[in-house]
């Protein structure tokens, strides 16, 4: 008999239990949400940490290159093996052994890394449907990340102005909003995935440091027609193609070089050329590419009325 009562009680409790279950489950769900938030926070912290490490590494690398440059200059000026002076700012960051102790010392072995001794000029031609926004850059020359350089892309009349920009790695791009309406700049990445959130005219503009080379597509989460492209180049070896399609890039280190022609209206084209002491030439043909629709920052289509 008591078993029956228990069974009946249990069955009677079931309808009561169902509506309160979500309430009981809420703390668990909240805990899950908290866990999710902490996961995001952890990811953000990790991202920041990685950025910091990356920047520090880049600084160290910059100092290395400066040092190597000095060594090369010393070689060309007959100062082989001359150690940096004590007051040389590069001295504190010396990570490769000094190459000898005095002027009489025999020339040391060249550094393990191949250092280009000469540069030359690369010229060429790009065939493209329109030459108003075509750029050519050298991809496989590692340049230093620029620091303290800033470029502005405004949000005005529900457009990005300018809609195309080329910046060197390390440049900070600022996005002031001059419209009374809110905009939300984001990029789905890669190379840079970010979401700057919503702000309007009068509010402090938000910015992103472009640390990785590649094409960064910019959109507004509220206005589907807002679009801009930022080409982040790895070095200073880039140029804008002239109206006749010709281009010229000076100071390209000799050797095997990969050149890229890019336009926001075309698919990028690559070409590997041999740059000799007398220079090199390259020619590209870019085909027109229709602009593909994009999703909003949640990965959803905008819908017909979101313009």
């Amino acid at each position, binding site marked *: 008999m008591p078993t029956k009562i228990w069974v009946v009680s249990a069955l009677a409790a079931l309808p009561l239990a169902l509506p309160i279950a979500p309430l009981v489950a809420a703390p668990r769900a909240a805990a899950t949400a908290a866990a999710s938030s902490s996961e995001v926070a952890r990811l953000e912290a990790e991202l920041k940490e990685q950025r910091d490490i990356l920047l520090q590494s880049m600084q160290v690398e910059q100092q290395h290159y400066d040092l190597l440059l000095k060594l090369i200059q010393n070689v060309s000026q007959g100062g082989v093996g001359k150690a940096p002076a004590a007051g040389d700012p590069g001295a504190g960051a010396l990570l490769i052994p000094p190459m000898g102790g005095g002027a009489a010392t025999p020339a040391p072995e060249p550094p393990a890394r191949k250092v280009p001794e000469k540069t030359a000029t690369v010229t060429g031609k790009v065939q493209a449907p329109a030459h108003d926004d075509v750029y050519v850059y050298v991809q496989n020359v590692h340049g230093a990340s620029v620091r303290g350089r800033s470029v502005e892309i405004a949000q005005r009349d529900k457009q990005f102005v300018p809609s195309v920009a080329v910046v060197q790695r390390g440049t900070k791009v600022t996005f002031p909003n001059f419209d*009374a309406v809110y905009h939300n700049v984001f990029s789905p990445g890669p190379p840079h995935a970010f979401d700057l959130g919503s702000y309007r005219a009068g509010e402090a503009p938000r910015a992103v440091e472009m640390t990785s080379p590649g094409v960064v597509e910019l959109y507004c989460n509220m206005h589907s027609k807002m679009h801009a492209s930022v080409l982040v180049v790895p070095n200073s070896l880039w140029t804008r193609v002239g109206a006749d399609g010709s281009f010229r890039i000076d100071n390209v280190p000799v050797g095997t070089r990969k050149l890229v022609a890019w336009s926001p209206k075309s698919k990028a084209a690559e070409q590997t050329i041999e740059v000799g002491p007398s220079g090199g030439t390259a020619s590209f043909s870019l085909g027109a590419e229709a602009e593909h629709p994009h999703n909003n920052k949640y990965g959803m289509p905008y819908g*017909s009325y979101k313009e």
Partner: protein
Amino acid sequence: MRPDDLFWQRAGAATALALLLGTCAIARAAPPAPAEPEFDADGDDTGGAVPDEEEPEPTVRDLSERIADLERRLNDTEVAAARRRPVVTVSGYIDFGFFATQGDGSGVIQDVGPAQSRAFPEYANKFAWVFLGDLLSPAVNSRGEPADLGNLPGVNRADSIRSGGAPSFIVNEVNLTMQGTLGETALATASVNYLPRSGTDFSLGDTFDVDLAQLEWMPTESRRWSFFVGKMESVVGIEYRERKARDRFGITPSLIARYTTGNPLGLKVRGKLGTNDWFIVALALTNGSSTTETFHFYDEVDSNAGKTASGRLALRAPSGLLEVGASGSYGPQDHAQDSRDAMWFVGGDLQVHHRGFDLKGQYLYGRAPGEELGRTYSSEHRPYGLRLRAGAYLEANWMVLPYLGFLARGDLRDAVVWLGNPDAPGGGDRIYITKSWRATGGVRLVPNEHVAVKAEYLHNGEYGRVPSIRNDVFVTSLVLSY
């Protein structure tokens, strides 16, 4: 609020808990789950044992490899963060307001008395009841609800606010909008409004309505063509785009919004053509007209076999500065059980946008014959007649500062709406004669993207033989979006 799989987790947890409670099962035997290993942000798998000896100086090659690795990890992290996207987004708003009206809050008066003393004696022997004015002119919110429908004889209406002229606070609407993707090219949207209202005789007066339940499919690569199915927005005119409190610059709808901002059920296609989408076409086939549900027309579920075709063609300047459109609809009368008599509208619209300034205007003309002689009509399916001689508005919105804007609007509505046939034996039932104009001034404050504070003053006026009715409205609205 960005619910992702949290909902399913919660539902699953709730179900599991309910079952556990229901069967009195006690989960005591289950051993605790092994703790998940902590994520090592440094990616160090040495267990923290770092040899206490000096590491050799890294070479340039080492550093380059490390940089490359860090850049790759950074990109992976960024992409992983970007991919943390919800399956469904939930947004919405709370629209809280206050209103005060002149008179009893209603926009109509009865034309009674001997024929000679009436404003419209020609209708004295044609309709049992003759009313002058506009039922919906004293609107107090973006839904267009009037402060009071008045105590009109011969009808028992759902008077949702029935303020009786008393100033009152009101929660105009609580909205929940859910959007989810069905693949890369389809978007499902549902919008539900909750309306807290006064109850009667111990019953709750709260109601809710589903104003959107649609699937939008964009099959083309450019996504410039959209096919809709479900309960969707109208294609007549332009005011439907800002019918919701969250989207409207001001508070109240125009006097002709009742004909164009309803949400019919059916099919729709909308396409954008040409460079910079300079040509826009929208066509729809729906159960009934695009009138609002809280008026004399509108069929949620159709009462006849015929369907209403509507469409809009528009030209837009490449810069988006100017858009000019023409639209209309044609179909069987709403509420009619046959498809013999047509109800139709035709109109034009204009939009000018420059920086923080917007100018919007619309004109509408329409007809519906109502009940014809010699036919029988079910008491639940009696079509109203309509003669909309002219309906128009012109509205200017100007954001003077990013957080402060002003509104000015002029409205006109010259219409006659009736029930029953005046030539039938005994005449028609009722007729509403409207010759109204309205001037509206408003202010809009936007402290941040989630809050909008709005205030409007509506001066409702009458012209022609319609006597003046005291039904001006002062209304405020606080819209909290989430």
